[in-house]
């Protein structure tokens, strides 16, 4: 854990602030005690009594704090009383000064920040399970943290805005999400967030500034060569730098991701529905397919998203007309390029009357919505895709009733979330999207199986590791030389003839990836399995692979004797 630095900073600030008041208190006490001891007391039995140091200290202790207690151990002489008056006033003033200094210390900005950092580092250290560092808690970050939390994974947040860190603390997460208000690209803060911890699985750099993301990625890589790095980047220049960092680096470009989705949507409409349903998109279901029509398309706004979309559309043989305030770049081949803002006039000029599709891709939500309404008034039958930049405008976009809404923050968050909680999913998607004969039928098969097994329930992607810690019973069984088949563990223990409500997607076995594995696959130690199922199925499956009796029952159909008595009975009478 990285604390030595903050600990020394906290104690340093405390010492520096408290030095003067402490010295003042010590001086006042010592002078007062010295005076008390040396001033002659009353005569008792003809002998002048002096106070001992202990008694003088005791007297000062209750006098200086104005408690007042009387004259102990004997009544004072008048000289002592005079000294006591002086001591009382001086010491009370000193105490007020000391207390004031403590109050000032707690209001010290540096002290507060140092304490916050220390507290953050301590709470990160308390996480005794794999966790992810999320740098940037904007729209993308909050969706991501919520998703991780729902999947039962831990996250740690660093964000520069105090408001957002405060908002983080007010959310109702299932597990605590420690947050620090700081610049994540400063190595010290990444260390405090636990980047060198063995439990830290990945650093996710999704601040709104690309340079910062790049710096976070580089710093994280230098501090921990094994940690996974996921970052959002929309610029090719940065991507090249990031790719050379080495180790596990994922770069998520929301516009490229969207272009891929759009491409899949044109070529495999069923796949788009499946993807949306898996990521839990509102209103997504397995029955309704979105199918962008082939014909003339209008792209309003030719930024990075417009460019990527244009590329995909032309690749699929669709003719596009572009409207953008900026003049065109020379190298691109676009049939119609209209320079200017998208309005009724330019839309007509771009041929809205006989167009089949419209993509509103500007980086301004108001503009996108107005283009959408404008275009729809000119042509009722348009297929519309609209870009939503800010999460706050969700209600307006929901009312706009576009065929597809592209939200870069959401696209990024979901992509990163899938990479984190279901790293095997990309193999599954790659398999489904491969241009090979029969893949369309495969997708239809997958969808119909999912519909039968999960239907309207909330789908959950679950990754199962067959390791000694995570599926103890299975590995024990393998150690004894028995085989465990996939079909055995996904059977319902309540009725082994039936399967649980889940569908196997991918199994990674000894470096080999098997998509849609069959039920007679033999599990080996170290295998990783990805399935989609319900929360209930996940619960049962996890208990099966950790309970040797249930596992034995499912594999053999025989109840294994569990207690010593039953085991003895089985051996004695050979009933097992």
């Amino acid at each position, binding site marked *: 854990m990285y604390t030595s630095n903050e600990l020394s900073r906290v104690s340093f600030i405390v010492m520096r602030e408290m030095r003067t008041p402490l010295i003042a208190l010590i001086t006042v006490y010592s002078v007062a005690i010295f005076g008390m001891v040396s001033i002659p007391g009353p005569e008792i039995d003809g002998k002048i009594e002096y106070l001992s140091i202990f008694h003088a200290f005791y007297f000062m202790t209750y006098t200086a704090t104005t408690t007042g207690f009387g004259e102990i151990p004997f009544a004072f002489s008048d000289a002592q009383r005079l000294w006591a008056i002086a001591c009382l006033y001086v010491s009370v003033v000193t105490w007020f000064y000391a207390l004031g200094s403590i109050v000032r210390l707690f209001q010290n900005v540096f002290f507060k920040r140092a304490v916050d950092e220390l507290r953050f580092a301590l709470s990160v250290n308390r996480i005794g399970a794999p966790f992810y560092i999320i740098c940037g808690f904007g729209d993308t970050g909050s969706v991501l943290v919520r998703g991780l939390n729902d999947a039962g994974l831990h996250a740690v947040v660093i964000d520069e805005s105090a408001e957002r860190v405060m908002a983080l603390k007010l959310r109702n997460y299932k597990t605590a999400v420690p947050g620090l208000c700081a610049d994540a690209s400063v190595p010290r803060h990444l260390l405090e967030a636990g980047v060198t911890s063995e439990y830290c699985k990945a650093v996710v750099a999704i601040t709104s500034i690309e340079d910062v993301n790049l710096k976070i990625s580089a710093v994280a890589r230098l501090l921990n060569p094994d940690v996974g790095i996921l970052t959002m980047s929309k610029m090719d220049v940065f991507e090249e730098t990031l790719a050379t960092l080495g180790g596990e680096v994922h770069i998520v470009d929301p516009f490229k991701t969207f272009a891929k989705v759009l491409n899949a949507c044109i070529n495999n409409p069923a796949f788009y529905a499946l993807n949306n349903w898996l990521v839990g998109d509102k209103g997504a279901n397995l029955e309704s397919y979105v199918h962008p029509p082939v014909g003339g398309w209008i792209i309003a706004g030719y930024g990075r998203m417009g460019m990527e979309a244009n590329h995909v559309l032309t690749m699929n043989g669709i003719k596009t007309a572009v409207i953008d305030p900026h003049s065109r770049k020379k190298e691109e081949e676009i049939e119609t390029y209209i320079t200017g803002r998208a309005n009724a006039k330019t839309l007509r000029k771009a041929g809205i009357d006989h167009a089949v599709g419209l993509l509103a891709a500007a980086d301004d939500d108001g503009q996108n919505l107005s283009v959408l309404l404008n275009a729809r008034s000119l042509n009722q039958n348009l297929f519309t895709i609209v870009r939503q930049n800010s999460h706050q405008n969700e209600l307006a976009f929901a009312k706009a009733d576009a065929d597809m809404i592209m939200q870069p923050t959401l696209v990024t968050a979901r992509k990163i979330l899938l990479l984190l909680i279901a790293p095997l999913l990309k193999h599954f998607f790659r398999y489904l999207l491969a241009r090979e004969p029969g893949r369309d039928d495969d997708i239809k098969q997958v969808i119909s199986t999912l519909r039968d097994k999960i239907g309207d329930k909330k789908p959950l992607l679950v990754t199962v590791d067959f390791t000694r810690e995570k599926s103890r019973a299975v590995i024990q069984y393998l150690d004894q030389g028995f085989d465990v088949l996939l079909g055995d563990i996904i059977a319902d*223990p*309540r*009725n082994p003839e039936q399967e649980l409500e889940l569908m196997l997607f991918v199994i990674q076995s000894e470096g080999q990836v098997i998509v849609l594995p069959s039920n007679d696959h033999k599990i080996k130690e170290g295998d990783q399995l990805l399935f989609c199922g319900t929360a209930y199925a996940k619960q*049962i499956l996890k*208990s099966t692979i*950790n*309970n*040797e*009796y*249930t596992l034995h*029952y499912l594999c053999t159909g025989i*109840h294994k*004797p*569990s*207690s*010593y*008595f*039953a*085991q003895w009975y089985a051996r004695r009478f050979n009933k097992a």
Partner: protein
Amino acid sequence: MNLEKVIFGFFIVLSLTLNVGFVLGEYNNPEHHSVYELFAVVVVNMIATGLKLGDRSQIGALLLATSLVADFELIAAALEWTFAVHVIGTGITPEVITSIVSLAGGALVANIISVVILVSETLISRI
């Protein structure tokens, strides 16, 4: 059907029901509480504990723990009865029987937890 589960279920439910039988009645009236019933509860409960030994699953460990709690409290109750009658010789006064019934009541709670765990485990994983 699994014979082991039948035997185990039989003893654990029997121990619970006998325990209820002993505790029922006015808590300070010695006439309402039979020494033979207490003896039966102790014996059946100990047999149930023995049947749980050796189960390596999480649920098995929990069942063993609750059963051990019941054992301890019932044995304490039995010891108190023995002391009162044979060692100190006060006999079963209302004070003594109150204390014995309290201990048996504690064991009853542990037995109820055992049965709840057993039933819920069965409902969740196997029917």
